[in-house]
């Protein structure tokens, strides 16, 4: 029964993919969209069943299908592990996935390749489910690289534009840098414990005496590099903003709510490894904090509505890693969930705006959309309040817990995280004011066509906004359902249960004031003073550096890409030609020897006799001398 459930869960989206690949075109757009949506919805229903089962029994379900890869001391199964963590992830992957599929039916309706879009989305959900429910690291890796592939396909969905294709390629390659880290981490763990299976690994580590901690730390570091790639952390984050080239539902589903949380999932899954690698945990916390700040600063000045949201995603992921670095896994997971709600809502809302403006993404050409698009406005407003940490919206609770955890471990990182949060409130409301308030700044033509999107777009927005409002209830301070639910996963006792003392209330107040301050500055600047960001050529000074994302892409190009390419040309033009000439040269030498040797054959009997006698003398004298 369990095996069947697991198979239905995984294979339904795959079936949806196959149907859409082979028959999608002839089925027509609406049908192919419906098939894609229903496939994911079925998985969602199965996830609910599994969730129900797990909450009642409290035990995970293990399903082993068959032996997959055989390595001398490692036996790797194709198997699934459905426990608290994976089912939780499944719920929001398939749940938000269903909503976004529904949304896409309307959003992508004008695209001639809509059936392909749904095929890729289904394939993504298939791989994401595989990633989440794999019972060992290598099954996770199938999903891990699989979602990378889908990300590649969907970023480059409009394949006639080579810039988009570049973005897709970049995403794939940067992810693969991380993947190498993940592989190496697996190799080390495999050789240390002879298993890649989570459950076996956990027992092995718990029962091990004389653990080689430095080696285990190295493994943890390598795994974290993998997480950096997938979850867009410094130094591997630059692909995510570019990934906005894909259709907006993709940004919402893959590049905000689900795939990019895979790194956090993996670290949480292997919490028993990371708990032992305290140095690596510090690295994770520091990288997370810096990423959240750096991305937030870049987000301050972006003018493309999706770019703002993309950097915001990088920044929020940084906060999650900050929590992971302190071993506060349940706090990170909490923020993953609330973030999935409000960020998916924000992206879908921005998609609704872009849809309404026929592809316009520059906020400088928006404004005043509040009246024409009320539902989009209100849902996005709610989500912005949530991400800014305004009390009683979901983000308030989850972000507050992260900052609280940081405060207890490291004041500097707490400060960094708080500053990033204030910036978040600022740029989110900058976005809101520029998009929805004041006068419309676009063309008359666009103004004429302004309208609210259809119900397939607004219904998912409303549902997500509701979740973004009330999502915080799953983990109220002092009375956390989530912590209790996840408790069986963690070796250490969870430390999320802070007593709510005066310190906590003060910190909460500071965070709220910070958020409100960010909103206030945005209000003054973009509502009161009615500023609109300068056009590109007029941006100067620090803003220019930020606008150009600290020139990190340019630096990477100069330091990595360009040298490899010049090296390639050098090898091609010089080494290859040189080696080739060398081989021909050997042939020529043989030729030359033959040619010179030919000259000796003069035909003169006298010379031959002379050489013969000389040789004979040499041999005879050698024999005598040798004796």
């Amino acid at each position, binding site marked *: 029964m369990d095996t069947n459930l697991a198979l239905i869960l995984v294979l339904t989206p795959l079936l949806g993919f196959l149907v859409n690949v082979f028959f999608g075109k002839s089925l027509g757009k609406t049908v192919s969209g419906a098939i894609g949506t229903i496939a994911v919805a079925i998985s969602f229903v199965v996830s609910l069943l599994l969730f129900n089962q797990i909450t009642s029994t409290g035990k995970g379900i293990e399903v082993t299908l068959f032996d997959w890869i*055989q390595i*001398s001391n490692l036996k790797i199964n194709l198997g699934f592990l459905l426990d608290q963590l994976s089912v939780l992830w499944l719920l929001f992957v398939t749940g938000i996935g269903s909503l976004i599929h529904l949304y896409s039916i309307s959003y992508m309706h004008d695209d001639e390749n809509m059936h392909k879009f749904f095929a890729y989305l289904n394939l993504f959900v298939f791989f994401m489910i595989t990633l989440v429910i794999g019972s060992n690291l290598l099954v996770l890796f199938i999903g891990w690289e699989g979602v990378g592939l889908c990300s590649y396909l969907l970023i480059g969905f409009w394949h006639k534009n*080579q810039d988009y*294709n570049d973005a897709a*390629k970049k995403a794939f390659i940067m992810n693969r840098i991380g993947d*190498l880290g993940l592989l190496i981490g697996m190799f080390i763990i495999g050789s240390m414990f002879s298993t890649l299976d989570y459950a076996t690994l956990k027992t092995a580590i718990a029962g091990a005496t004389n653990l080689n901690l430095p080696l285990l730390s190295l493994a943890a570091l390598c795994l974290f590099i993998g997480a950096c790639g997938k979850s867009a952390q410094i130094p591997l984050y630059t692909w995510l903003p570019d990934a906005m080239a894909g259709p907006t539902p993709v940004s919402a589903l893959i590049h905000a709510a689900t795939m990019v949380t895979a790194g956090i999932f993996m670290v949480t899954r292997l919490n028993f490894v990371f708990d032992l690698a305290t140095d690596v945990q510090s690295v994770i916390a520091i990288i997370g904090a810096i990423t959240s700040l750096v991305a937030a600063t870049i987000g301050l000045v972006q003018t493309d509505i999706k770019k703002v949201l993309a950097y915001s995603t990088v920044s929020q992921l940084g906060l999650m890693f900050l929590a992971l670095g302190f071993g506060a896994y349940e706090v990170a997971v909490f923020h993953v969930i609330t973030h999935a709600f409000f960020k998916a809502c924000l992206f879908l809302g921005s998609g609704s705006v872009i849809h309404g403006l026929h592809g316009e993404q520059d906020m400088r050409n928006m404004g005043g959309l509040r009246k024409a698009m009320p539902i989009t406005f209100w849902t996005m407003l709610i989500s912005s309040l949530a991400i800014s940490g305004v009390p009683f919206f979901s983000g308030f609770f989850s972000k507050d817990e992260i900052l609280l955890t940081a405060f207890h471990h490291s004041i500097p990182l707490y400060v960094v995280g708080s500053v990033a949060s204030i910036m978040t409130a600022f740029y989110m409301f900058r976005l809101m004011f520029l998009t929805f308030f004041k006068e419309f700044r676009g063309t008359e033509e666009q103004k004429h066509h302004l309208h609210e999107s259809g119900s397939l777009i607004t219904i998912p927005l409303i549902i997500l906004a509701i979740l973004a409002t009330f999502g915080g209830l799953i983990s109220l301070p002092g009375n956390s359902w989530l912590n209790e639910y996840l408790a069986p996963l963690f070796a250490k006792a969870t430390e999320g249960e802070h007593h709510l003392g005066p310190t906590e209330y003060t910190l909460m107040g500071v965070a709220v004031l910070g958020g409100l301050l960010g909103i206030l500055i945005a209000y003054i600047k973009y509502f009161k003073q009615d500023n609109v960001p300068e056009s590109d050529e007029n941006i100067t000074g620090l803003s220019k550096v930020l606008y150009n994302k600290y020139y990190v892409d340019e630096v990477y190009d100069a330091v990595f890409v360009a040298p490899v390419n010049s090296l390639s040309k050098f*090898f091609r033009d010089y080494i*290859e030609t040189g080696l080739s000439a060398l081989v021909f040269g050997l042939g020529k030498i043989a030729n030359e020897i033959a040619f010179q040797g030919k000259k000796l054959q003069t035909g003169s009997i006298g010379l031959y006799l002379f050489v013969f006698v000389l040789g004979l003398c040499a041999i005879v004298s050698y024999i005598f001398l040798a004796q």
Partner: protein
Amino acid sequence: MNVSTILIILLIGAFATYFSGDKLASKVALLFSLAALGCSIVLLNNYNAGENISVINSWITQPKISFALNADGLGLAMVLLTAALTPIIIFSSFGNEYKNSKNFYALILFMSFAMTGTFLASDGLLYYIFWELALIPIYFIALIWGNGDAEERRKAVIKFFIYTLAGSLFMLTAFIYLYQKAGSFLIEDLYKVNLSACEQFWIFLAFFLAYAIKIPIIPFHTWQANVYQKAPTVGTMLLSGIMLKMGLYSVLRWQLPLAPIAAKEYMYIFIALGIAGVIYGSIVALRQKDLKKLLAYSSLAHVGLIAAGSYTLTLDGFRGAVMQMIAHGFVVVGLFFAAEVIFRRYETREIEEMGGIRAQSPKFTSMFLILVLASVALPSTFNFVGEFTVLYSLSQVNIWFAILGGTTIILGAYYMLRMFQHVMLGETNSKAFADVTLNEGISFAVIIAVLLFFGFYPKPITDLITPSLENILQVINKN
């Protein structure tokens, strides 16, 4: 039925094809290659893991050379690879017209015959004869039916011929030396010879020269890209899909067990050389302008990794190497076929002149992309199973080998996706591109099916090859 049946079918097939005339030749050749495939599947079916099927007939008494064939799991795997790829290669050529096609297809079958013989021979000299015999058909195929400027082609092909022949002569010398010690060319007798470390060093080196040129391992690869480019695609497929596996197979079968002390002594150098090939090949591939040349360098990178795996002298390394050989055989044939499909429509191999094909041919795009992804070892393809196993074995020798060899997953993705972008994507090409025909589609589909099936379920292959690889390891570790 025994193993020699396959050889007989292929040889008769070669003659039958030759006498069938130009019109029927391709179909006759396909029929015989399929018969050989069927025969090898029957053999496999009757085969119990771990046993050997052998045929020994004395052939020449002085010196003592026997017509000895032996199929263990490893040999069978390689025979199956050859038997499966030959019909695919022949079938893939159905869209082309060849002058004197009876000669052309007869040579393909003859080459398949010689390569199968190489994988089966268990007598050193017989093996050597098959090894050299395989060179002759490909020489003519590349020379006569190749493309590009005739003079340049002649130069490249002759270089290839002499270069590989010269390398093999060292191997022949080594065999003669070993014969003097053992009094026989039979592999089990040769395995028993006790050689000093110094002797082993020279034997090892002599074999290495032969194999390094054939595989090729850098810096002995200079013949490769030009010949791959200039040979007709069928020839390129035969070379890259099967023939270079002769070299890799021989490392496992002959070089390592015959000189185990030397192998252990120098393994680090040879692993490093293989990995250097991975990085070098990947980097050179990045900036190739000719599609077939790019694939040639990608092949160089992949075989470097396979060689590195073989030289680890571990079961995982061997197993990964063999699986990677099979996976690479299929994927590289598929990729060269994709290049051919484009050539049939655009009559060019210059990447610059392509682009914007995807919009016109969704089926071809999907198939090509799957092959590209298999080539970069995406999990769920067979290539991943092989590459993962090889990299794991390298990590057990030294973690740095795994890291450096692992750069293939980054660099490979870089040059392959870059190629795919420039060849397939972008603004719709002004030249029309008809989607794949049924015949073309079948060839792709078969290859893809094999790669995906074993990607999820490699167990049959693992079970087939493991016992014989364990035997080889036993020989290596006996002293």
